[in-house]
């Protein structure tokens, strides 16, 4: 009974998660967090409230399509200093970062 329940729960979770990006392994996640904080932060601010680049807080990103944000991270934005991060990030990782930004997961508590 407990086993069946957990299988159901896992299936349900997967269904709910839908398009959501899988979390990277812990070591890579730590690396990505540092990348967001320091490397994204060098233009967007250590607290992601903006600088030379715009703010990346949940409020600032609300209403912006996820696909557009993922594409911006991967491909950069022509005509602005935003570079493509494709050489260093998989699409899955970019999606995980975008979701983290939108949910405020990268902001300091």
């Amino acid at each position, binding site marked *: 009974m407990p086993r069946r329940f957990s299988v159901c729960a896992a299936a349900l979770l997967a269904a709910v998660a839908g398009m959501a990006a899988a979390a990277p392994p812990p070591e890579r996640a730590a690396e990505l967090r*540092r*990348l967001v*904080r*320091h*490397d994204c*932060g*060098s*233009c967007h*601010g*250590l*607290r992601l*409230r*903006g*600088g*030379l680049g715009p703010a990346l807080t949940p409020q600032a990103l609300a209403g912006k399509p996820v696909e557009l944000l993922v594409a911006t991270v991967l491909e*950069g934005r022509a005509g602005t*200093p935003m*570079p*493509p991060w494709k050489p*260093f990030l998989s699409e899955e990782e970019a999606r995980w970062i975008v979701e983290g930004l939108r949910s405020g997961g990268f902001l300091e508590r």
Partner: protein
Amino acid sequence: MAGSWSAERPRAAAPAAILLAAALAGCAAQPALRGTGDLGIVVERASGSLLVVDTTARRVLHRVTGLGDLSHASAVFSRDGRHAFVFGRDGGLSKVDLLTGRVVARRVQAGNSIGGAIGQRGELVAVSNYEPGGVRVFSAATLEPVADIPARGADGRASRVVGLVDAPGRRFVFSLFDAGEIWIAEMDPDPRRPRITRIRGVGRQPYDALITPDGRWYLAGLFGEDGVALVDLWHPERGARRILAGYGRGGRRLPVYKMPHLEGWAVAGNRAFLPAVGRHEVLVVDTVRWREVGRVAVRGQPVFVEARPDGRQVWVNFAFPDNDTVQVIDTETLRVVRTLRPGRGVLHMEFTPRGEAVWVSVRDEDRVVVYDTGTFEPLARLPARSPSGIFFTARAGRIGL
């Protein structure tokens, strides 16, 4: 001399006792008697703190906390070299006493700022802001506001301000990133009403600027196009001239993962060394005719290009993903003579005043490494939390720093 000394001696006992008592009583408030010429600060970007360091003993004297968001923080010094003015990303302006290790004044003056400068007479501190765009000027003594200079371009829109420096003639010079303009604010005769000279159409997206050590030439690097805007501050009426405009023409531009900086003006003889943008090269420029005279291929996108004070070497650090490396260029042969790997996240380098050593901040290793610039051997490693900018008091006496 010896005679007069011994003549004083019999009377020395009582005053000495009084002095000792006074010293003991004042211990809590009075810092030890010492100069500040060999002191400096190391910004700890993630924890909102900084270290006060002694570059002779190579040790940390104080940790100063409570300085806010110090990502991209920079600092200038009072003309007596005792106080550091620290400009934080969150608009915080803090005045730190290097001797006591205390914050003596602090003001959050804007929402988002990028750098600052101290005026020629040492009585004004100016801060350049992204949000709201513009420059604000404060009293160096109290940090009370003196003047507010909103930066609106020819189109009337507010612009982010970068590349703020002080210049002779009680002037501050800065660039408008969004508007593509360079402004000169004269603080004479009344600092509360600065007189502004606007130079329009200098080029797309000036991202940072520097002033030559003699205070005559202001150079703004352009991000939105190839080239550098040059203003002769002896003749601002002549406007800005474009130099290095043909640089990189036809070549493919590489992505830039961190904006290069121009504050470290690297001059050796009649040559200046500048980071290229979108190319893994250091540009060599003739400072008499302002023409490119060479390029040095380097490991990655240069961020800081800094000359040892004697001009014989230029040290370069790099943007992600090459930010674990530092390269040294010999300015005579224009060759990379040494590649060092201090560790991940090399963010800044600062030479001691006469250049026998360089301090390198290594963010991800949580330390500062001090190198001998002759042997390239590490002399010391000091623990620091996510260190970024390093600033020594020798800047106090230098135009534009």
